[in-house]
């Protein structure tokens, strides 16, 4: 699936913790592509350490 179709599927079917639903609908989800240890990498290649288990 393409990043855009994943964002659309998420918008259509999923809710996420600690969000405003309408804001999430307009912004869309950040798609994560991979992980290495505590670091998550998004589809644009940006990595950040995960310090919240619920995402």
């Amino acid at each position, binding site marked *: 699936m393409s990043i855009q179709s994943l964002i659309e599927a998420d918008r259509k079917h999923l*809710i996420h913790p600690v969000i*405003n639903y*309408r804001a999430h609908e307009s912004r869309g989800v950040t798609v994560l592509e991979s992980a290495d240890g505590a670091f998550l990498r998004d589809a644009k290649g940006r990595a950040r350490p995960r310090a919240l*288990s619920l*995402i």
Partner: protein
Amino acid sequence: MTVAKGLTSGYAPMGAVLMSDAVYQGIADGDPVASVGHGHTYSARPVSAAIGLEVVRLYHELVADKDSKQAFDASLKLPDRIAAAAYKNRLVFRAFGDNISGFAPALSYTAAEFDLLFERLERTLDNVLAEPEVRAALRAKDGVKGSIKGGVAA
């Protein structure tokens, strides 16, 4: 609606909350800026999600018509027929009232024992399918006399 367990056939922890669009819209319209302050604590677990996807791929339905997914009429008492045929074929599983057959083989099952399970299950379903009332229920759906279109999937 809260759901769990069967999402991964019980092999990995997974739970979910399902809501209708009416409920979703009600929450979404509740406050234009505030976040809904619930947390899932642990979510987006790739192993459980992968098992969940595989479970969905493996689930099959017992339907009277495979194209329309039309269910068998309750008056047919299909679960009773399946349970009776399974007993005769020396196979133990759960034939639920809503035409779902449940299997929870022991983790020690060998490949040979799975072969035996599927052999007896196939015979069980074939026996049920051969019953005149069940055949009639299929014919009534597709209107093709003597043809078993759709039918029972194992």
